[in-house]
């Protein structure tokens, strides 16, 4: 399959139809991969910004018909132009492809199409007729021929996808515009129902998600993105505040196969949730006594109160999932024993171990040297990890490091420092978190790294550091810190906390289990199918990716659950068409930060109320208060509902 022969996308035209074979084709703005999946070519694509044709055999007329029918079928039925107008056009195109169209239909479609684009409420109608109008302009001849010759156009083979910039960016693909619309309408419980179709972690994600959706929010082009994360939190909290039983989707009929899930963290809970909804009987093996995994041990209560995670685990158990706490796989039960009893296994153990700093004295077991995750874990259990210590130095720039410093105040440490080898700009932690820590008066030392632990009688008394400067960017694009020779200095401290990253503890897997690991000592699982080297054993989350964001673990676990279902039902374990389409859309680019929206800014994003820094710094009470109802509804009404439809014409 060759070059793109025609493309009109985002107002840019690349028409190669008349060019000779040798002439190089005009560059197209639309990046269209040649194949939908191995062996299935993409003949053409039609979407919100135009269309592109790669194969002459693809009929643009019929694609328009299919596209407008798709638009009509996803039109919510509320606004008049889209609801009725796209139906009128779809029927006109239906007539034309049946060979009974009239010439005047073309003009009527042009006029009506323009009117729908101009008059519709959301992006379904505002973008729906865009490719049709482009086709009527650039492929008018084809339409006229079909009408003149009264020919019946054969129907093409299409894959259709409804998405939105925020939905596409979300690793879990939550149906964001719909659940936000429900909030704007005051129907909070139904909003939560929509969220729970895709995740059981509404309250958790509503607090700690890094929200890729918000940086892909079209509202950003007008004023500020919606506070999608906290709207999700709002509906999750609403259910709790109103003392409602958790609303869970109705599972499918029970299936007779059992699946074991290792780890009750975000990945494990999500995978169990989906499989339970599909009717499987699930057992989760969890080494700790609490659900939530790294989200429970690694995220302090002031950001993610424990009852939230417990409730979300309750939602999973409501579906019949059994969680066996205090059951460490490898000790209490072996993987091979599990394998005998369960038809499939999902490994979602996370990345629980701290990365070594590679400094002198790290392995000497000095008192006061406490890895970040362990430090947070004991604080979250309500203990002071090292009560003799008063001064705290945390090394690292990620969220765990920030959580360590902020938690230190909350167990009464007064002198709290953070060392980071680059500058604030490069810090991977959430900017909001850094800002909050600054407000709470954590002392930040940028551009320095520890070199040696200083001890007295087996206790930490200080850390020797070296100043750094930023050099050339590394592969992550951040400038690489380089030590400045002779700049060593000492910071006095009683507690030294490395928080520079997490790694996976694979000790529960024995050689006999035959599950391969990567060179980074993570579980080797297929990018697309989440299968490990052992059939029937799947894995996703931090134990595969290394430390990553919660929503990705949740999203991958959902996909892994799909794969496990394929495996157990004897189908080929492969990525679903829907997920392929979502990825294809991502490749094409659903969000355009340059797009002009054409409306005036209409009110700012609602602000959450926060406890004052001087009060909140000493307590584990949640720092941010949720949205009150009225603010949530106002915030939700800012949504532009940017749904859009992509249509892929495939070969074969």
């Amino acid at each position, binding site marked *: 399959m060759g070059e793109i022969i025609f493309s009109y996308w985002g107002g840019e035209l690349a028409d190669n139809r008349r060019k000779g074979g040798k002439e190089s084709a005009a560059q197209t703005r639309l990046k269209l991969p040649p194949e939908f999946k191995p062996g299935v070519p993409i003949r053409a694509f039609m979407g919100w910004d135009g269309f592109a044709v790669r194969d002459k055999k693809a009929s643009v007329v019929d694609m328009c018909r299919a596209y407008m029918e798709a638009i*009509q*079928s*996803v*039109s*919510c*039925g*509320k*606004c*008049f*132009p889209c*609801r*009725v*107008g*796209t*139906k*009128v056009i779809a*029927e006109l195109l239906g007539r034309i492809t049946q060979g009974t169209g009239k010439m005047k239909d073309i003009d*009527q479609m042009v006029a*009506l199409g323009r*009117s729908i684009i*101009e*008059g*519709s*409420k959301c992006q379904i109608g505002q973008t729906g007729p865009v490719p049709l109008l482009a086709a009527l302009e650039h492929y008018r001849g084809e339409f006229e021929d079909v009408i003149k010759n009264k020919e019946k156009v054969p129907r093409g083979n299409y894959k259709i996808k409804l998405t939105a910039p925020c939905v596409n960016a979300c690793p879990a693909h939550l149906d964001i515009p719909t659940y936000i619309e429900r909030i*704007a*309408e*005051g*129907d909070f419980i139904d909003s939560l129902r929509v969220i729970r179709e895709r995740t059981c972690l509404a309250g958790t994600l509503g607090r700690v998600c890094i929200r890729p959706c918000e940086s892909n929010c079209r509202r950003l082009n007008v004023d500020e993105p919606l506070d999608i994360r906290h709207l999700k939190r709002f509906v999750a909290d609403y259910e709790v*505040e*109103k*003392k409602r039983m958790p609303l869970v989707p109705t599972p499918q009929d029970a299936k007779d196969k059992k699946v074991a899930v290792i780890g009750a963290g975000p990945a494990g809970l999500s995978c169990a949730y989906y499989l339970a909804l599909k009717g499987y009987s699930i057992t989760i093996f969890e080494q700790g006594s609490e659900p939530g995994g790294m989200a429970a041990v690694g995220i302090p209560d002031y950001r993610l109160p424990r009852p939230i995670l417990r409730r979300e685990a309750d939602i999973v158990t409501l579906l019949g999932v059994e969680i066996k706490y205090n059951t460490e796989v490898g000790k209490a039960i072996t993987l091979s024993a599990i394998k005998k009893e369960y038809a499939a296994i999902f490994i979602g153990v996370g990345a629980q171990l701290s990365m070594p700093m590679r400094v002198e004295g790290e392995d000497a077991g000095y008192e006061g040297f406490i890895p970040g995750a362990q430090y947070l874990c004991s604080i979250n259990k309500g203990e002071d990890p090292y009560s003799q210590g008063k001064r705290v130095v945390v090394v690292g720039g990620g969220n765990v490091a920030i959580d360590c410093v902020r938690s230190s105040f909350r167990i009464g440490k007064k002198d709290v420092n953070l060392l980071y080898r680059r500058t604030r700009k490069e810090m991977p932690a959430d900017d909001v978190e850094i800002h909050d820590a600054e407000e709470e008066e954590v002392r930040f030392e940028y551009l320095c790294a520890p070199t040696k632990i200083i001890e007295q009688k087996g206790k930490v008394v200080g850390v020797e550091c070296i100043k750094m400067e930023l050099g050339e960017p590394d592969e992550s694009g951040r400038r690489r810190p380089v030590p400045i020779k002779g700049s060593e200095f000492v910071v006095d401290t009683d507690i030294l906390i490395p928080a520079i990253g997490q790694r996976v503890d694979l000790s529960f897997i024995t050689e006999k289990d035959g599950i391969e690991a990567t060179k980074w000592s993570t579980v080797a699982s297929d990018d697309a199918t989440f299968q490990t080297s052992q059939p029937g054993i799947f894995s996703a989350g931090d134990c595969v990716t290394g430390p990553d964001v919660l929503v990705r673990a949740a999203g991958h676990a959902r996909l892994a659950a799909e794969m496990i279902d394929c495996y157990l039902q004897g189908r080929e374990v492969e990525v679903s068409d829907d997920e392929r389409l979502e990825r294809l859309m991502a490749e094409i680019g659903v969000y355009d930060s340059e797009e*002009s*929206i*054409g*409306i*005036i*800014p*209409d*009110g700012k994003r609602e602000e959450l109320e926060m406890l004052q820094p001087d009060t909140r710094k000493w307590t584990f009470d949640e720092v941010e208060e949720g949205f*009150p*109802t*009225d*603010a*949530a*509804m106002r915030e939700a*009404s800012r949504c532009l509902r940017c749904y859009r439809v992509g249509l892929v014409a495939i070969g074969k």
Partner: protein
Amino acid sequence: MGDQTVRITIDGTELQAEAGQTILEVARENGIYIPTLCYHPRLLPIGSCRLCVVEIEGADRPMTACTTQVQDGIVIHTQTDRLHRIRRDALKLILTYHPLDCPQCDAAGACELQNLVFEFGIDEQEYQATRSTQGMKEFATPLIRQWGDRCVMCLRCIRADHEIVRTHAIDLVGTGNEAQVGITNPDACISCGECLRVCPVGALTERVSRTKARPWQSQKVLTTCHYCSLGCQLELTVFENRVIGVTAPEDRGANRGSLCQRGIFGYDFLHHPQRVTAPMIKGAGQWKEIPWDEALSYVAAMINKVVLASGPEAVGGLISPRATNEETYLFQRFMREIVGTNNIDSTGRLCLEPYRLALKEVLGRNYFPSALDDIAKSDCVVVAGGDLDVNNNIIAANRIREALWRTGARLIVLHPRQGRLAEEADCWFSLRPGAEAIWALGVIHLLLKNKKAWGPAVDGIKGFKELKEAAKKFTPAAVATEIGCSEELLQEAAQWLGQARRPAFVCSPPLGQRANGVDQITALANLALLCGALSDGKGFHWVGPQSNMVGVVEMGAAPALLPGYVRPKGKGLSAVEQFQSAAQGKLKALFIVGEDPLLTLPRFLVEEGLAALEFLVVQDMFLSETAERAHVFLPALSFAESEGTFTNCEGRVQRLRRAVEPPEGLRWGGEVFADVASFMGKEMPVASPPEVFAEIAKTNSLYKGMAFDPQAPQWRNGGGSGLMKKAAFGVIKTEREKGEKGYPFSLAIEGIFSSHLIGSPRQQWAQGLAQVSRSSLEMNADEAQRIGVTDGDRVRIITPSGETEVTVKVSEGMRKDCLSLFLSLHDVAVSQLVGPQLDRRSLVPAYGRIPARIEKA
């Protein structure tokens, strides 16, 4: 929001607006026309019909005026060629499937679509699109028909259902052009007619009246609803001297355009064939029509005879809380001046008295200037007493719902049953009626610990020290055990109330209708005083089941109150006492206006009393059960035929206007009383309602200077100033209730007073309502299982005073030791369950707490 002024320009005119207002709101305020179809002032704007699009300079896309908020300096154009084209196209699209059956459509002439099509001069169906035909169907309630093809999908009905009533009986189903208004949960429908009311076209029509008329053939008469004490403003549609429908103007009264099931559908009794229109006298057990003069002179002679033989104290009078202020005023003059007795009462007083006495204790006054509009602005609402949703006060419940999303209000509900409001509550206390005082003291105990939670200058109020002392022992642990809730829930409620800037209490009977009932309300009022709900006069609401509950008491229909809450010399007999006295042979003649005590007062007492009476005259629209026992029957005017005023629960004094001419010869109550007086040889000048009101406005300090037909809404005097002058924390007793052996349940009757003048178990005069409204006994599911009954079974309620049969409704969310009997239209003979014990202070029977047991029928 709202405190910032912005300047905008619409169509070249510079205007001032408040930040937070939408462009449409500002335009309408300034008389600038922008077409709309999906917009409705009571509903959240959705910008779906696209008719209100406007062009804003700087924005490429037209924006909807209903959803776009004004911002300083924006320049708006509402009439451009482009906008005209967009609007016209949107309308043309609706016409692709809208049937052109205007000639036979109910809405023709009052149809918003028709008007728009006319305005835009659309004269052809340009586009075609198929849509499956819907035909005409019964809607979520049998009282409404749905014509799906006429629907323009403005979604107002769905939004009214979801936003105002929050029943979710209907929803949008399907997508694209096949999307339609579907009945998704018919069981949730409460037939409130809110959907019907907001429909802009003829897609929803009512089916109570068989007679239909075009808007230009009929008149609309603004009047006041005669059902409950909210005094909703409504318009009766009148055609050929018949009421054929009810609507409500958006901008008037406490209801602001909303109506409940009764208000909108409960009018067919007005033209019921069994209405009695001539005076009758009973001879040999047979009723016989007689001329007015004959009837009135006979009544006069009989009263004179009793007075002569046994003195004026042998005569009693009862007047319905659905009588007008003018009738009541004249009736009490008749009883006090012509007959010479204070033996006058009304069941309206039975609903108001416990509240009045509690107010008297805590604020040193008889009434409280509360406005229902303030409920919607409150940020924490406490609901105590009746279930407002079931109990005929749904308009008040809906105002609370409004607060939930308007201000993000917290909601605390005290009721043994988990009703709809309880489901939406942050804190629902499944309280045994009578435990309100303990609950309030528990919350007071917690609030006293936190000064920030107090209203202004609370510690300076009289009785504060005593309150502190009294609340000491009501620790969360003690209270939680006593009332059966968790300590956390109590703490949470205290937290919400403590944080609230505008707390509001909404109370209603049967709260207080029991022994020591006044204490329950006093305790709640203490709490309200503590958290500042009373200081601005906006946070303590009392809603009741009868339209003129407040008016009749303020007009002096009370044994110990003259008009204007003035104490008379001496004290007459209360309603129940009159029958007790009759049974003892002391009271011999009784004049009943509109009351049906056999249905509302302890029945066996009433039976005994009636049997012993020498003379009973009843004035009513129908031959009620009590009227059947009378010697003389006098016909009465319906509310639609009456001129006069009602005073609603907020203190609004509102007009009743004559919408239909009464049957020939019928006269208003005032004239009847004056005629009887003159036949008695005494003088009571005949006066028209406006003249009587003028007299009230002169003599009753609460109504001083008021007009019968005011220009603006008129409120009873004595507003918000100086409210706290006599404030004091009331002293309350919290005796532990003794159960009665053999009666494990505590039964509360709700709605016993709601059906005056319109029916009885054997007489269903309001036939429309009877189709959708049935009485039911709510019972805990486990308890029901124990005696082997399920939903819909018949059970016998047995109390120490009597028994009756009723359909049971089994509910998980019902307190185990409680029963709630929700009465509708008296299809259950319930008065025989009520015992003779009266609360010693309010003289009210214990409707709110009756010992009971249940057997399978």
